[in-house]
């Protein structure tokens, strides 16, 4: 064990810090889930990141990345959150589709999709879920049928993050008549294709975080199938493991939130009841524990280890940490907590983050599913 950064790692941190200080927006961009303008402002930021080669830092250099290992990625993320830089509209590309393309894509597919993704020219929505398939993803029923050199897609997707304003989407489609995990293929399709209709779903606070996608005889070239025909489940599981596990929630996010919470408490903590200080300290500890645990996991993976079912513990821990931390922020705000916009207070953001946190135990496999996974695959308890 060696808990010091190498000189190269320190140099990376310094470089990232300097670049972010020079380039990160000084005022918050408006939400990419609320308006086209907000979305495009975030696309612009993706382009700026790309111009500094800070967009896809874990990708290989040939696709616009820096080939950073996970420890280095953590360092970059720490600096990114320290700089209060914008949330990544490109997230589905960076963490979900990008790595999947690199693992399962043909050279032609990689050349076609990865650079455009890195540049922010094509921003991706995910299209996993369906009305009858939530935590039970194998129940998807949207279909794919080959017709000459094309695929024809039909069906309905739901809970597609970014789909309202994004350019492309990727999703699982089924050969008609196939059952459960068989006959699935992962298909990429433009959200502008004829036959695609996108209906925004408003989150409880009005942000269009999700959308439904209706597909009616949508025609894409066979080129757009990622992985083998019928191999969609395996491809998708590799992506989902990635999503659940290490990558989606970087510890810096919670460390920054814990820091904000400490500041808020210092500013307003005069008569908050005696337990509040303990709660603030506990959240800070949990954020720290999450960071240490991710460093440990990153060290293992960088050395060639595989991410296994223990990633489910991550999902549970960060999602509960997030809710608790945001809730304590609201608690400190007291009767100001319910304000949707903090016109004068300078105390904004807690409510948004709280609402966002409520989705944590639900998406990417509900925490109930994660607990099943831990008990069966980590602890070895019998399935039934």
């Amino acid at each position: 064990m060696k808990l010091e950064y190498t000189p190269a790692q320190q140099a990376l941190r310094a470089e990232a810090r300097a670049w972010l200080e020079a380039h990160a927006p000084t005022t918050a961009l408006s939400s990419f889930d609320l308006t086209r303008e907000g979305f495009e402002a975030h696309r612009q930021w993706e382009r700026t990141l790309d111009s500094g080669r800070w967009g896809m830092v874990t990708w290989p250099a040939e696709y616009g990345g820096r080939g950073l290992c996970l420890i280095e990625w953590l360092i970059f993320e720490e600096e990114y959150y320290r700089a209060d830089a914008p949330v990544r509209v490109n997230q589905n590309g960076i963490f979900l589709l990008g790595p999947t393309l690199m693992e399962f894509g043909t050279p032609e597919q990689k050349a076609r999709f990865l650079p455009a993704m890195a540049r922010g020219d094509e921003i991706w929505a995910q299209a996993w879920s369906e009305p009858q398939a939530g935590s039970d993803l194998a129940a998807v029923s949207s279909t794919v049928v080959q017709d000459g050199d094309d695929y024809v897609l039909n069906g309905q997707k739901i809970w597609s993050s970014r789909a309202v304003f994004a350019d492309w989407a990727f999703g699982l489609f089924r050969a008609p008549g196939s059952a459960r995990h068989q006959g699935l293929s992962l298909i990429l399709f433009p959200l502008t294709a004829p036959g695609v209709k996108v209906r925004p779903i408003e989150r409880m606070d009005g942000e269009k975080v999700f959308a439904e996608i209706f597909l009616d005889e949508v025609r894409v070239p066979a080129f757009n199938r990622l992985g083998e025909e019928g191999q969609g489940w395996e491809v998708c599981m590799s992506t989902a493991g990635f999503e659940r596990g290490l990558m989606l929630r970087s510890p810096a996010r919670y460390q920054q939130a814990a820091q904000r919470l400490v500041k808020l408490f210092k500013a307003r903590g005069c008569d908050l009841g005696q337990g509040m200080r303990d709660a603030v300290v506990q959240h800070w500890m949990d954020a720290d524990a999450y960071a240490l645990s991710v460093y440990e996991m990153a060290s293992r993976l960088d050395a060639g280890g595989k991410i296994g079912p223990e990633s489910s513990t991550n999902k549970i821990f960060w999602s509960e940490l997030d809710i608790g931390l945001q809730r304590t922020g609201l608690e400190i705000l007291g009767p100001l907590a319910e304000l949707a916009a903090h016109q004068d207070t300078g105390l904004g953001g807690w409510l948004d983050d709280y609402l966002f946190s409520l989705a944590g135990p639900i998406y990417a496999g509900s925490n109930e599913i994660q607990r099943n996974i831990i008990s069966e695959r980590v602890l070895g308890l019998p399935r039934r």
Partner: protein
Amino acid sequence: MDFRLSEEALMLAETVERMMWETCSLANLRALVLSGEPYDRGRWGQIIALGLPGMLAPVEAGGSGLDELAGVLVAEACGRVALPEPLIEHAGVAIPLLAAAKPDADVLTAAVQGEAQLAIGHPANPFVANADTAEAILLPHGDEVHLVPSSAVELRRHESFDEFRRLFAVSWNPGAATRIADASLGRRLWAKALERGALLAAGQALGLAKGAIDLAVDYAKVREQFGRPIGTNQAVKHILADQQVHLSFARPVVLAAAADFAAGDNVSLARVSHAKLAACAAAESASRAAVQVLGAIGMTAEAGAHFYVKRALALSAAWGTKAFHREQVAERVFEAQIGPANTFPRGGAAA
């Protein structure tokens, strides 16, 4: 000693509940959001028809002269459907305050009949809820109570994430003409209003918890995953069973606080605070459980869970923060007689 609700109380609760169910479905709530109207005039008419605006007002003022227990039961029915109209603050807090301060106020009669709405700017709350539709607002100046016509105030909207809580900062000029209670009386009236606000928030919170549990149970019965209703999963069952436990041990506290409200001593104050803490905790927990059981759909504006999430969160910090109420309980616990023979210390059981 009899903890059962009277026939009249049960009948009142049933009547109000039925009206609420008929006029305030999820579809009604959604339609109101889309309409941009501040409240539903049809439903307000029904509320008037039942005499609810005047429920706690003295009979001399044309009210029904009901007690806080009745108020809590009505509040519970309102919470159960996440009622948008400001009935509870109007009828439960503002009218009793006005009736105590200035029983001959013109607006009191109109308020009791539901023709005019009253808003209240209590010092414990940073904003005045629903001031825009009020005919007059009760406002503090130091400890004084002022009754200010809406024509004499300037309102600045502060957006609550609860679309049915329209919050305002109020600018106005205090003067002798608007003063209806001096500082000495006002201090007592504001304190009583805070307790009443807290108690009725607790009543609403009971309803919110029940409404959220019902929503989640109904969904869990029909939503299928892995080929069977998600409600067959022990994980889902136990989440909801826990909510039922919270609710079961909050409701008797709220009822006892209401029944004992008039006493106004530290035992009764502590129980109101306990009621607020327990009921709001139950409402917040149940509304979050509903989101979790509904899954992604629970996060949306289309499903009803968010009405419960928002109101539960707003009420839990309104009418005194958790810290304030915990301290009010602590004062009883550390300063007064406690122990097994002191559940009802004024009931002849002083230890």
